C-alpha cells in the first residue's frame, strides 16, 4: 500500500516537473499533427515517386516530376502567381487603411461596419461562388453586365477570358478575406501608444505624415504576418477557382496549382502525379515565404 502511494507520488512528481509539463501540454497537438499532417505529408513525398493504380503500386523514380514540365502546369503556375500578386496588392493596403478609418474617432457605426466587413469570411465559399457566378453570368441581363452597361460598355463573357478570370478570383478572395485582415490590422493599431500621435500633433504633423511615419512602421510586424499568410493562402488557392469553373476551365485560364493537383490526382486517378504537384507547391511556398521573411528581416529579431 505504502509503496504504491510512493510510486504515485513519484509519477505525479515526474509529470509535474518543469521539464516534463510543457511536453505534456503540447502532446495532444504533436500527436494529432503527426498522425493527420506529418504522416500524410511524408507519405505524399513518397507517393510522388510512385505510380499508383488499384493493386499496382510501383516506384517510377522522377517520372512524375519530369511530367510536370508541361504547358498546363506552367499556365497553372502563372495563374497562381498572378492571383497571389493581385490579392497581395489588394488585401494588404486596403485593409490597413480601412482599419485606420475604423479605429479613428470620426467614423460612426464602427461595430456595424466591422461586422459587415467580417461577415463574408464566415460564408461558405461555395455559396458565395454561386452568387458571384450569377452576378457575372454571361447574358446581358446579369448584374455585372448591367452595371458596366451604365458606362456604355458592351456585355462581357466574364468566365471565358484570361484577364476576367483572374479578376473574378481576386474579387471573390478580396471580398472574403478583407474583414479578417482588417481585424489583424485593428489589433495591431491597438498597440500603438497614443503619445506618439499626440507628440506628432505638437510637432505639427498632418494626417498623412502620421500615417506614414507612425502607423505604418508600428504595423510592420502585423504587416509581415498578414503578408506571409496571404502569400501562403495565395499559392494554395483552390476554392476561388473551383466555384466558378470546377476543376478545369476553358483554355486553362483559371487553373491553379492546387486545382491542377485535384484534377490530376483525384479526378483523373493519378495520385502519384498529384502528389508531385503537391510537393512542388510545398517547396514553392517554403521558398517564397523564406525569401520574404529574410528580406523583411524577420530572422534578425529571432536571433537577437
Amino acid at each position, binding site marked *: 500500500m505504502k509503496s504504491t502511494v510512493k510510486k504515485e507520488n513519484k509519477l505525479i512528481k515526474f509529470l509535474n516537473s518543469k521539464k516534463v509539463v510543457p511536453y505534456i501540454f503540447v502532446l495532444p497537438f504533436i500527436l494529432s499533427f503527426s498522425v493527420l499532417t506529418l504522416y500524410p505529408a511524408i507519405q505524399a513525398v513518397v507517393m510522388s515517386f510512385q505510380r499508383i493504380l*488499384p493493386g499496382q503500386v510501383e516506384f517510377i523514380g522522377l517520372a512524375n516530376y519530369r511530367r510536370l514540365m508541361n504547358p*498546363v502546369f506552367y499556365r497553372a503556375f502563372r495563374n497562381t502567381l498572378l492571383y497571389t500578386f493581385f490579392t497581395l496588392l489588394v488585401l494588404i493596403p486596403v485593409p490597413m487603411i480601412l482599419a485606420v478609418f475604423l479605429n479613428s474617432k470620426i467614423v460612426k457605426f464602427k461595430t456595424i461596419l466591422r461586422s459587415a466587413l467580417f461577415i463574408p469570411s464566415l460564408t461558405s*465559399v461555395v455559396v458565395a461562388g454561386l452568387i458571384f457566378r450569377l452576378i457575372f453570368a454571361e447574358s446581358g441581363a446579369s448584374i455585372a453586365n448591367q452595371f458596366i452597361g451604365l458606362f456604355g460598355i458592351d456585355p462581357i463573357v466574364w468566365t471565358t477570358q484570361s484577364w476576367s478570370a483572374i479578376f473574378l478570383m481576386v474579387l471573390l478572395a478580396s471580398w472574403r478575406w478583407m474583414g*479578417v485582415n482588417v481585424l489583424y490590422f485593428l489589433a495591431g493599431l491597438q498597440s500603438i501608444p497614443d503619445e506618439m500621435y499626440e507628440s506628432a500633433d505638437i510637432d505639427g504633423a498632418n494626417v498623412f505624415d502620421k500615417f506614414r511615419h507612425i502607423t505604418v512602421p508600428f504595423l510592420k510586424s502585423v504587416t509581415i504576418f498578414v503578408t*506571409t499568410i496571404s502569400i501562403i493562402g495565395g499559392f494554395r488557392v483552390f476554392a476561388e477557382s473551383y466555384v466558378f469553373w470546377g476543376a478545369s476551365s476553358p483554355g486553362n485560364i483559371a487553373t491553379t496549382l492546387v486545382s491542377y493537383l485535384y484534377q490530376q490526382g483525384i479526378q483523373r486517378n493519378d495520385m502519384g502525379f498529384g502528389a508531385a504537384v503537391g510537393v512542388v507547391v*510545398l517547396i514553392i511556398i517554403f521558398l517564397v515565404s523564406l525569401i520574404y521573411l529574410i528580406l523583411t528581416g524577420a530572422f534578425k529579431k529571432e536571433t537577437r
Partner: protein
Amino acid sequence: MKKYLSLFGIGIAVTLMTACGGNGDDGSSEEFEADVDEEVTTGEDIEGATPLDFWTFAGTHADFFVDAAERWNEEFPDRAIQLNAQTYPFDQMHNNLLLAIQSGQGVPDIADIEIAKFSNFLQGEVQLEPLNEFIEPELDNFIEERLDIYAKDGNYYGAPTHLGATVVYYNMDIMNEAGVDIDSIETWDDYVEAGKQVVEATGVPMTVVPVNWYGFWPFIVQRGSDFFDDNGELIIDNETNVDTLEFIQDMIYEHEIAEVSPGGDYHSEEFYGFMNDAGAASMVAPLFYMKDFTEYMPDLEGKMAIRPMPVFEEGDARSVPMGGTGTVVPSQSENPELAKEFLNYAKLTEQANINLWTQLGFDPPRWDVWDSPELEEDNLYFQYFDDTIFDTLLEIRDDIEGINITEYTPDALEELETNIMHNVIRENNQTPEEALSQGAETIRSYME
C-alpha cells in the same frame, strides 16, 4: 549554430502554416465532407436479410434500386436483401469510390459510375466484377454498343442505365413559321439549308453548339470516327474529325445558322432560359435530355419533336449512344455473387428495362422492350413530346454507332473542352486542324 536552429524553427513554422490552413481556408473543405445527401434503406425488417450498400449520385437512381429491392424480396424471400442506398454529390461519390477501392476500405457492394469517370476504374488490375454470366446470354437483345462502353478485354463490368441515343430536338413552332418540313432533312447539308430558311424567316438561330463534347463527339462517332480507334490508338486529329469540326465551326461563322450555347453547355441556367424562350430552333442532344426539357423548359411542352440525326453521307449512323452511367459490383464487396444477381435483376432484365422507362424516363438499352405495351402507355414524356419516340428508335436500331472508351478518354474529353472547343468554337482563333493536332499532342504526352 543558434542561427541555424532558428532558421530551422521558422522553416517548420512555415510548413505548419502551409499545412494547417494558412488563411483559415475552411470553405474549400466543405465540398469534401462525407455528407450523405440522402439515405434510403429497405428490407431492414426482414430477418436474415443480407445487407448490401449501394452508392449513387442521383436520388432517382436510389429510388429505382429501392423499388427493385422490394420486388426482389417479395420474389426471393429466402435470399432477401437489405438495401442501403446512399446518394452523394457527383464528384464526391466518384472520389470516395476511387479512394475506397484503392485502399480497400469501406467499399460498397454496388455503385453507379458515370461514363466520364468510368475509365478511371478500368486502370491497373480491374477491381470490378465482370457481369458476363448475365449479359452474354442476352447479348442479342441489347444495343451492344452501349455495353461495349463499359467493357475491357471482353469483360462487361457495367450495367447500363439507358441507351442515350443522340437525336435532334426541333421546336415545331419555329419550324412551322419558317415553313421547314423536318422529315425532309436527311443530311447535314439539308439541315444547314433549313437553318438558313429559319434564320431568314424568324431571326432565330437554327441550333446551338456547346463548347464541350456534346458539340463534337456525336458527330464524329456518327461518321465511324472517334477519339480513339478500336485498338486504343489516338485518332482525334484524323481527317474525318478535322472535316467535322470545320463543319461545326462553319455553321456558326460561315453559314451563321448557329450560336455558341449560352453558358457554354446544355446544363447552365443561361441555356435553359434561352431555350425555353424559343432562343434556338433545334438542338442535338441524347434522349436523356428529355428530362431537362420537362424539368427546366416548361414553356416548350407540346412544341418539341424528336428525329434521328441527319447524316453527312449515306452509310453514316443515324444515332450514337452518349453519356450514361454504368452500375458496377466492386470485387471487394462482401457478397459479390448476390450483389451481381441483384444488379442483374434491377437493371438488366426485361422488366428492369421497362422500369428504366416507366420510372426514370430513360430509353432502355434493351431494344426487345421498345415495342412492349408498357412503353406505349401515356406518360410525362409522351405528353411533352409525342408518343412516337420508340417508333423512331426502332426505325434506326441497326444504324447506331458506339463510342470507344479507353483509360485516356477523360484526358481527351478534358483537352477537347479546355482547349479545342474553346479555341475553335468560342474564340474562333484557331483552325480545326491546328487545334486538333495540338490537342492530340497534349493527349499523347499523357499516354507515354
